[in-house]
Structures are given as structure tokens and as C-alpha cells.
């Protein structure tokens, strides 16, 4: 990244936890995917999760909005614990925004309709107000002029920025990103990362699964390494990159930074 901003220059995280994972375990059948995961994310904090493929990163962040269900331990989001109670799950999903690797925009709706769908049907905002809100966020991701187009008419980078705007329209307390740039052509990665850096600078609470180490260095408060369903190491970016403690972290960094 060209900007000189670093974590140190950003506002210090407030103390209230937005996401709390306490002793979380999950199994896919007999396969133990998440093993005793503990993680607290405070308001305004930005966490980057990295790690080898199959390490359970996606599974972990998908548990936070209950797209995947955990079997043991506690997940508390914005003070609401995820249990089998559907009301609570709905409540949590309203407060958590998610951006996927494959964008997952709704191809039959225009960009604007993609953004207003949840505000209208979940938040019950009047249409005009929802559209105003959507335009505000589309401006923030720098594509207000594409509002009337369909997702299929946009480039990958533009689609991912729409996906970010769509999630932001719900005013989430925390944004989850699952490898938001891995499906993009190299020349589009920057525009998406820049948008995410701007969000970070605005104090958005973010949990980002990513292998963009430049991004992690620039905006993360903490970098977390996950492997075999466990948190292997978590530390501030300078420490994490310059003085990795765990063998697996060293191995991972040597592979990814080459």
C-alpha cells in the first residue's frame, strides 16, 4: 500500500467487545474443524486472520453470523449469545455484515436493489430512505454511477465494492470479510483493498480473512494465524511479522513472503 498510515496512527480500540469467541469447537461429521478457539474483538478493532488452506478460517468467521453452527463453546456478538434460538440468530445477523470471496451479489437485481433489499425487508426502512442510504454507501465505495446496472455488467473489483456497500447498508456493528480479494484479477485487488483501508480508517470493526500481508501490516490491530482449526499465534502486526514466535508462523510467513 502506498499510504503511510499504520495501525499506530489509528484510533485506539474502545473497550467494549463486539465479538467474543470462548472455547469454540466445531465438527463436520467426525472431522474436528475448530478446536478451542478463543478470540475477543473490541469495538473499532481490525483483525486479520491468515493461515494455510483448510485451516478453518472461513468456517470460523461463518460461525460468527451462524451460517455455520458451532457445537461447543460460546459465541457472543454485540452482547447477544448465539444459541439455537432463531430470534437471537436473526438479531445477530442484522448486526453483522459479510463480504464473500465470490461476491455473491444477486444477479437479477440492480446494484441499487442489491443494496436496498435488506434495509427494506429486514430493517423495514421506507424505499426512498433505503435508496438514499444505499447511494450514500455506493458513493463511499466510489461507484454511485453504477447504481442502475446489473452486477453482471460490472468488473470483479466493482462487484466486490458493491458487495461491501450492500453489507454496509445494514449499518453492521462488525464486518466480516472472507478472502475478499482472492477471486479478483491482480489489477483489481488494489481498488478493493483501498476501499477496505478507508473503512478501517473510519473505525469500522473488521474481521478479515486474507493473505494480503501488506493490508494486514497497514490496518490490522492484530494478526491471527490459524492452522488445523486452532489459533496458533495472535499478535500486533509488527511483532507478528518481525518476531514470529511459533514454528508454524515462521513456516507460514516464509512460504507466503518467499
Amino acid at each position, binding site marked *: 500500500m502506498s499510504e503511510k498510515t499504520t495501525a499506530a496512527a489509528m484510533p485506539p480500540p474502545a473497550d467494549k467487545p463486539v465479538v467474543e469467541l470462548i472455547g469454540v469447537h466445531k465438527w463436520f461429521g467426525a472431522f474436528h474443524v475448530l478446536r478451542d478457539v478463543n478470540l475477543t474483538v473490541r469495538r473499532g478493532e481490525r483483525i486479520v486472520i491468515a493461515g494455510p488452506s483448510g485451516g478453518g478460517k472461513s468456517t470460523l468467521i461463518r460461525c460468527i*453470523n451462524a451460517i455455520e453452527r458451532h457445537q461447543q463453546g460460546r459465541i457472543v456478538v454485540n452482547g447477544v449469545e448465539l444459541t439455537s434460538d432463531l430470534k437471537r440468530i436473526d438479531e445477530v445477523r442484522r448486526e453483522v455484515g459479510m463480504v464473500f470471496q465470490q461476491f455473491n451479489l444477486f444477479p*437479477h437485481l440492480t446494484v441499487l436493489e442489491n443494496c436496498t*433489499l435488506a434495509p427494506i425487508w429486514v430493517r423495514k426502512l421506507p424505499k426512498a430512505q433505503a435508496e438514499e442510504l444505499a447511494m450514500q454507501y455506493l458513493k463511499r465505495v466510489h461507484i454511485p454511477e453504477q447504481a442502475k446496472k446489473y452486477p453482471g455488467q460490472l468488473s470483479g473489483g466493482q462487484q466486490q465494492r458493491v458487495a461491501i456497500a450492500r453489507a454496509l447498508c445494514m449499518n453492521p456493528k462488525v464486518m466480516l470479510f472472507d478472502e475478499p480479494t482472492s477471486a479478483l484479477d491482480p489489477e483489481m485487488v488494489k481498488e478493493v483493498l483501498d476501499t477496505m483501508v478507508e473503512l478501517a480508517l473510519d473505525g469500522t470493526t473488521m474481521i478479515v480473512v486474507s493473505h494480503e500481508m501488506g493490508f494486514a501490516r497497514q490496518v490490522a490491530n492484530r494478526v491471527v494465524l490459524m492452522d488445523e482449526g486452532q489459533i496458533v499465534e495472535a499478535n500486533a502486526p509488527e511483532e507478528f511479522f518481525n518476531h514470529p514466535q511459533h514454528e508454524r508462523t515462521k513456516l507460514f510467513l516464509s512460504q507466503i513472503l518467499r
Partner: protein
Amino acid sequence: MTGVAGERAYADLAFVQRAPIGALPPPLAMRGPWGWLRANLFSSAFNIVLTVVMLALIVWIGKSTIDFLFIDAVWVGHDRTACMASEQRPHVGACWPFVWERLNYFTYGSYPIPQRWRVDVFFAMLAIGVAWLLWLEAPRRDLGALYFFVVLPVCSFILLSGAPALGLETVDTSLWGGVLVTVVVSTVGIVVSLPLGIVLALGRRSRMPAVRLFSVIFIEFVRGVPLITVLFMASVMLPLFVPEDLTPDKLLRALIGIALFASAYMAEVVRAGLQAIPRGQYEAATALGLKFWPQMGLVILPQALRVTIPNIVNTTIGLFKDTTLVFIVGIFDLLRTIEVARIDPKWATPVTSPTGYAVAALFYWVFCYAMARYARHMELRLSAGQERR
């Protein structure tokens, strides 16, 4: 010419083009109608043979059809004598006076003559409803839907079966017949089977085991049984279990049978469409906080139905033609009225049956072709809306 030759690209030497080459028209053999014929009909020996054989076939069938329907056809007359072959007239084609005379019977069945205006009003109301719903640029399509799904069924029911309180005398459904019955049965079948099919398809993918089990059993049971059996069960077996005066009307029973039967097929068609939707769409909708029904109604079904339109129309066309089976349980649909009329001694001639069947064929073909064209139009329109995926 030498100057031109000097301009040619000799790839084995270093070459720099001095003048660009302008676009030329294609050679004569590729142009005009002759070029088209060559490319499409006479491109090889096999194609030439095929073209000639097909042409002969088309001419032969076309000529016999036109001869039968128009050239040799009888246009006026009062009974069978007009349509009989004789010394002066060895070739007799379609017997149109028979159709003119029986046209009302084909349309209304035995519906009492003074009451037939009610059927006409019904046809008109239905036509308005269908046009309003299918014409995508029509004004107030929300009102159109309300009209089609609420106003129309209620009004049609009152109008057709009668309401003594409103001065409309009761007409027993056993008197209904012809196009009226065909239209009622297929419209009800189509209009009920689509939503019911969607619900069953969603049920089959439901996370609740009881719902899923019910849907699977229903679909697999109905698909495992021929429509004729369903109709027989509805008309013969139901009265055995239900007391006489509680047994619903015969036409109603057939309607229910057909609607349920069609729903099972529709459910499988819709399910195929649901399966074509990537999991990410469900996940994105879930992550946004949309609950099951809004998620289905706003995100999944619009996409699933879009890819399923050709199959839905295909099923609908099948259903439309399958409605002719109701004659088995003694209901007089169009085909049945033609069947009855063609053996009427008054018109009994060798050409009466072919004429009647030609009318039936024309009727079914016009409706089915219209459905197919409309589906094609919808597909093109929808795919134009959103260019690449």
C-alpha cells in the same frame, strides 16, 4: 499488375505494408439468395438428397392438407347429404357445415342456451386477466394479479355455476362442456399447480424432516401413478369413502385431481431450478438477515423460476393436452364433444371425423404454440436484462 504484386506479403522476407487492403464484397457464390441456398440446402450430396426428399414430403403433405381443408371442402349444407361423395363429386374434403352447426356445442357443451352469455362473459373476463398478467408493460400489474387470482375465480364461480340469490339460475356442472370445460380445467390446473408446486419444491428442500417427508411422499406417489388412475380415484373411489351428500361435484373432483397431479410435476421442475442456484446466493441472503420466506421470494425463486421458464411452459403445455383425459370420467371437454358430435347420424359421413379432429388439432395447436412463443419471448427478454452473469 507488377506494381500490385510488389505489394504482396511475402512472409519469408522482411515486409512492411505500404498501402492497407480495403474490404471487398464476398465472391458471388456466397452472396444473395443463391448463396444462401447453396450454404444451407445444397452444401453436399447428402444435403441435396435430403433437401429434395423433404421438399417432396412438404409438397405432398401440404397439398393433401390444403385440398382437404379448402379445395375439396364442403362449405354449405344442412346435413350429411352435403358431405357425401357422389358421381359428380368423387373427392370430398372437410365438412365445414357440420362444424358451423356444432360450433356452439363445441364451445359450451350442453350449457343451457339462454344462459350461454354467462360463459361468454367468463371468456372475456379470463382473456382480460391473462392479457393483464402476461403483458409485462401493462399498467397496475399488482391490480392485475389481484384481479386474476381473487376477483376472477370468485366471479367465474358465481357466474358459471349460478347464484339464485343474484338471479343467476344454477347450472349443474354436468351440463358444462366443450371449450368451456377445457379452459376451466386447464386454467385451474395451471394456476393451482404452479404455486403448489413451488411450495412442494421448497418443502422437499426444507430442513424440517416432517415437511420434507410429506413433500417427498406426495411427489413420488403422484408421479408414480398415471393421471387416468388419479382421475378414476377422484371420481370413483372418493364417493365410496365419503357419504353421498358430502361428495363434491364430479368436475370439482377432476379439477382437484388434475391440479394435484400437475403440482407434483411442477414441483420437480421448480426443484431443478432451485438446484441451479449457487449456494453463495443462499448464504449472502442469510448473512443479510433475510428470513426463509423473503429469502426465497426475493432472491432464490426469481432466479430459479427464470431458468425454469422453458420447463414450466413445457409442463404447462403437457398439462393442457392432458386435460383431454377427463373424458374418461364422463366430463365433456372439447375433444369429447367433438367425439360425440362426429358419430351423430345426422352428419355421419367418412369425412366428418377427420373434420372434427382437424378442428381439435387446430385448437390445441394454436394455444400450445402461443404458450411456446410467449415463453421464448420471456426468455429473450430476461436474458437481455442482465447481459453476462
